[in-house]
């Protein structure tokens, strides 16, 4: 299987590209507000931000149908927003409120909206990779043509669950896309320090699986690669491994440093020069699809939406005390 970074084919219409730009901006502004709220103590626990990686969620989900499944690790605010969960419901969940998308019981790491096919936010590294294959198994079993995109970080590739699942997905021909967001660091450990094989796409060879290496700082490239993988899954029920190279600007979680012992400030700044939002905005400006005034208006609109989400979350009630004991078991 060849793994090549393909240049984006300009098959996207301007409207879709503008939508993708707006979605990336929404994630960026949402995460900035989440960081503020975390600093103010409004958000507790672990909170893993997506800033820098927006093109991955936005590009990949643009290639999906509304009823397709998405399942993620704990760095999933971006995917949740793009899958259609309202910023209000996501922010309220981060605030632990009853109006949150998991009723305040999940928090940042466990966002869910089953009706939209958003199957969570999961907190054990690599633990949700088999779940993603299982969703694809269910789709195939039921004779549906829904596919599942399973997002995970590069550090999960060292987990046994990754290998066991890729093997079975290939043997059973499951309509699943394993989308590895390679942001280069598992918390503070550079991938090359702990992985014998650093080109993750190569792992696909072990499981006779289609694979592609993708520039994750470009939403259009991610879209095109995911589109090919989705077609392979939907039409032929074949899995794909995508290695999407991206970069997180923030620390691993809100309680971790941005840089220091494991990466330099210069490196982070250098990566910011590849910013996915700046890149797409620049392209669309160059093509005359949008001008600076249009961009400013889009940004203001997105910011207002996020500020409204913070207000909504802040004013929402905590869950009722008896919610403690509900949802442990189903009827």
């Amino acid at each position, binding site marked *: 299987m060849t793994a090549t970074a393909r240049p984006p084919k300009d098959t996207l219409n301007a409207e879709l590209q503008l939508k993708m730009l707006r979605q990336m901006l929404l994630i960026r502004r949402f995460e900035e507000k989440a960081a503020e709220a975390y600093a103010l103590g409004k958000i507790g626990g672990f909170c893993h931000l997506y800033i820098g990686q927006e093109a991955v969620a936005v590009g990949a989900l643009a290639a999906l149908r509304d009823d397709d*499944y998405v*399942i993620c690790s704990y760095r999933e605010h971006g995917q949740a927003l793009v899958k259609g969960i309202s910023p209000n419901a996501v922010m309220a969940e981060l605030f632990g409120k009853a109006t*949150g*998308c*998991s*009723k*305040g*019981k*999940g928090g940042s790491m*466990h966002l*869910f*909206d*089953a*009706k939209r096919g958003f*199957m*969570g936010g*999961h*907190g*054990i590294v690599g*633990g*949700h*990779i*088999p*779940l*993603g*294959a*299982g*969703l*694809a*198994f*269910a*789709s195939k*079993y*039921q004779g549906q043509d829904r596919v599942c995109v399973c997002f995970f970080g590069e550090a999960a590739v060292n987990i*046994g*669950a990754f290998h*066991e*699942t890729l*093997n*079975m997905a290939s*043997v*059973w021909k499951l309509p699943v896309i394993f989308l590895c967001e390679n942001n280069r660091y598992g918390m503070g450990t550079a991938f090359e320090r702990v992985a014998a094989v650093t080109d993750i796409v190569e792992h696909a060879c072990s499981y006779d699986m289609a694979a592609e290496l993708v520039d994750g700082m470009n939403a259009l490239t991610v879209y095109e690669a995911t589109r090919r993988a989705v077609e392979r899954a939907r039409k032929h029920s074949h899995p794909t491994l995508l290695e999407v190279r991206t970069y997180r600007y923030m620390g691993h979680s809100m309680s971790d440093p941005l840089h220091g012992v494991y990466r330099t400030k210069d490196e982070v700044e250098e990566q910011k020069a590849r910013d996915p939002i700046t890149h797409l905005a620049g392209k669309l400006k160059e093509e005359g699809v949008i001008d600076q005034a249009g961009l400013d208006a889009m940004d203001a609109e997105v910011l207002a939406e996020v500020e409204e989400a913070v207000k909504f979350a802040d004013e929402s009630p905590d869950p009722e005390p008896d919610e403690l004991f*509900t*949802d*442990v*078991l*189903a*009827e």
Partner: protein
Amino acid sequence: MATLTYRDALNQALREEMQRDPNVFLMGEEVGVYQGAYKVSRGLLEEFGPQRIVDTPIAELGFTGIGIGAAMGGIRPVIEFMTWNFAVLALDQIVNSAAKMLYMSGGQIPMPIVFRGPNGAALQLASQHSQAWEGWLTHIPGLKVVAPATPADAKGLLKSAIRDNNPVIVLEGEMLYNMKGDVPDGEHLVPIGKAEIKREGSDVTLVCHSKTLSVALKAAEQLAEQDIAAEVLDLRSLRPMDEAAILESVQKTNRAVVVEEGWPYVGVGAQVVDIIQRDAFDHLDAPVQRVTQADVPMPYNKVLERAAKASPEKVVAAARRVLYLDS
């Protein structure tokens, strides 16, 4: 009513539930072509085909997680573990994914899945293959745990487990698969959470489950020869546990011995004792005794293995102690 082995009773439950509901499927090592490591799935591949009787690689964590994901997608998996000793590899999925999915999704994603397979020691299989896991599994909120001791209960509890919308652990007994007993035909459901008195008595309650039912029944026979009437209470379900049945029996006999295959520390018996001391303290005429596996990894040697296991003799001795016949 037919006389069936425990194995065939489980097979009948699987077959009937798969006939009833096309969303029920079986997945595990050797369940299909090989007809099951313990032949519980005999004939099912021929009847239901490879889409519904799914042979897996030896990858417990992976196929358990795929089963859980399939349940998230609306179908009803039955995951067979060749033994619960191997299921420990899948404990992350059982505990972190299956048991918590409904709760952490705020009630959005039910988890109708069964995890089943043999539990506890057989004969001379040594430390890694001779373990009773109910203490671990029963600890977890979000799971239900059943441990049938008879063919009829095996059928009735497995059918209830498959119809339940929650993850249910079915602990089978490797040494029970050949046991024969009367099994009701067709629709026979044993409710999860209901214990059953398997022998009535008035002097002491022997609380047991799974393989230790036969241990307790033998002990009760021996006690009867000493004019001691032991009541044998089979828990059948460990989570939820039938607290009312335990209390009712102890309020009648005022004495109890709890028998289990597992180790003593933080075991199922410890939970039973807690229920009794909390809600039947004033009814007790003696401290409750426990009979468990010795607090050691299981040895291979036959003599040592026998010494490590719960036995009727140990139960009789414990019963005599709670009756103050021996010190």
